């Protein structure tokens, strides 16, 4: 299938993907449209862009979106104050506006002579109008700078990955232009694969016990924040470093603080599911 440029992305050794996700990425590359990735925190949305960049051997540009980020900043910034300041001393030719135009992340990705991977991370963090302001630029992959009468258009359409945490936040017009993929929480088999990428020589018993405990914790709906992949990885690291006996993993859940990060969740769990015996808390039998 490589003949028509499809099936480019196959994942990278340190990132386990599912086939639907690979397909979504490949179709977005082939059609030159951004791929919008949504999913629970800790399912590896941001890492996907890194994996694409590594897998395809391309450079990655990351545009981290904050609540104050404006769409314009991604395109270019015209540093008027610097220009005004320079005009006082006459050591630079201030009539050359170009030197005061600084390209933003999006601008850099368009202007690059080679194809890049562009990650627009956590797009929902920004102002609610932010995605709408970028519609045209992402569609045409070009923008106009009135100050220099220049049009920056993409030499190669960057492979654009957009991540978002929130649900139902993005405007429809924006969504229409994207390929969408929702990363489901990995099932135990896939999770085992993911864990083995991080810890190639983890013991089978430990992993089995830990995964069982982890998935039963996730079934408790009362948590504000359910433990996710990154918490599991931290926990496993703690378990391995602490040398905990396998049978204690499910009965005591040592280092539970690495799994339940919110104080309310932690307190709720200890109160509802654990009993104190001596100095130790153990899981109450139900």
């Amino acid at each position, binding site marked *: *299938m490589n*003949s*028509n440029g*499809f099936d480019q992305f196959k994942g990278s050794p340190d990132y386990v993907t599912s*086939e*639907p996700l690979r*397909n*979504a990425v*490949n*179709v*977005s590359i*082939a*059609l030159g*449209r951004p*791929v*919008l990735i*949504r999913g629970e925190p800790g399912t590896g949305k941001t890492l996907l862009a890194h994996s694409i960049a590594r897998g395809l051997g391309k450079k990655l540009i990351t545009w981290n979106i904050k*609540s104050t980020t404006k769409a314009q900043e991604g395109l270019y910034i015209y540093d*008027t*104050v610097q220009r*005004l*300041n320079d*005009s*006082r001393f006459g050591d630079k030719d201030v009539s050359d506006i170009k030197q005061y135009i600084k390209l933003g992340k999006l601008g850099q990705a368009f202007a690059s002579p080679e194809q890049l991977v562009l990650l627009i991370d956590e797009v929902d963090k920004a*102002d*609610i109008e932010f995605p709408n302001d970028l519609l045209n630029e992402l569609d045409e992959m070009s923008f106009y700078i009135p100050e220099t009468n220049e049009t920056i258009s993409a030499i190669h359409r960057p492979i654009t990955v957009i991540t978002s945490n*929130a*649900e*139902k*936040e*993005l*405007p*429809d017009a924006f*969504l*229409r*232009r*994207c*390929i*969408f*993929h*929702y990363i*489901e929480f990995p099932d135990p088999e896939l999770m085992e694969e993911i864990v083995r990428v991080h810890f190639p020589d983890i013991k089978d018993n430990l992993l089995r016990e830990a995964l069982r405990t982890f998935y039963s914790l996730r079934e408790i709906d009362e948590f504000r924040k359910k433990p996710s992949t990154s918490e599991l990885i931290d926990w496993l690291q703690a378990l391995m470093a602490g040398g905990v006996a396998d049978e204690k993993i499910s009965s005591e859940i040592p280092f539970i603080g690495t799994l339940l990060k919110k104080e*309310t969740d932690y307190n709720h769990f200890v109160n509802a599911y654990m009993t104190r015996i001596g100095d130790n808390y153990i899981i109450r039998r139900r």
Partner: protein
Amino acid sequence: MFTDFFYSLKKRRVPVSITEWMTLMEALAKGYISNLDEFYYLARAILVKSEAYYDHYDVAFQEYFKGIEAPAEITEQILEWLKDPINRMTLTEEERALFDKMDFDELLKEFEKRLEEQTEQHDGGGHWIGRGGTSPFGHSGYHPAGIRIGGQSRGRHAIQIAQERRFQNYRSDLTLDVRQIKMALRGLRQLNRIGPEDELDLEKTIKATSKNAGEIELIWTRSRKNAVKLLLLMDVGGSMEPFALLCSQLFSAAHSSSHFKDSQFFYFHNCIYDDLYHDIERNEAISTDHLLRTLEPDYKVVLVGDARMAPYELMERYGAINYYERNDTPGIIWLKRIADHFTHCIWLNPEVPRFWIYPTVRLIGKLFPMFELTLDGLGQAVKKLVVKK
């Protein structure tokens, strides 16, 4: 091609547009989709933009592609023949156009017919089921509307995945969504110049520079920021259960709206008494009196509730539905104190206005301007909250 599938999705209220449909057609025309599994995922990636609609998509997919399981089973018999992949061949434009005309049902019938006729393994060519050819059936072949049979192992088939309907829990079927509420809440703003002086005042800079005989004088000013502070008080009593989703959306919209200078959220049960609560379970209390003393009167107060309760819950001492609350002061007095302390208060009622004749609703409606918790009502409420008094 598959146009009925588009309408089938529409019928299931999946918000698909022509733009997306054309994108899918582009992907199909370029030959990126070679089997039903890929079609399932790619069409979903292109057409469906929220996991809330994945389930609707699954239902529509089952409906349109039902009966596809049969050939998936026949696959097993032919698998033997099709072990090694042969490089795909390319089609001419007119051949492609020819195949585009076939729809899925025709393809299926054709498939079964040919399978019956066929008695031997077949590679290449344009009609028989086999490898590498241009027949719509077989594998490693090139046919835009073709059904993939065998080849590499593919795990589960698309139709089975659709039948599982794993995304049922993600459905929402919403009347108001978070984005709409957020847009409405944006109206809640009063821009004041506050904070550090970090914005260049161009007008004043030019003036000062001219006065300075061209020597540049930069004048900075404070940027305009929203000065609105929000206090959201929500009823989580039993009668509010049917509106739990709506209220949680309002909450998440208000909570994630970053443009407020400050926002505070509290819960109560049926009516407000001595305490308000930080959490829905009402474990962590804060005294209402304390709030009234610490919060400035310029907080915009939004109360959410159906205002429906037994009259004694509102009017009597010790009327609280929770016996242990033992309120010395009747709820109505507490409500009155809130209405008196803050300059801008409104009440959002998720019930339709024709139920607002209930006595406690009418009483509370006299204290607070009451609006329906719909997009329109919210818009009116926001207007009410920003009028100058």
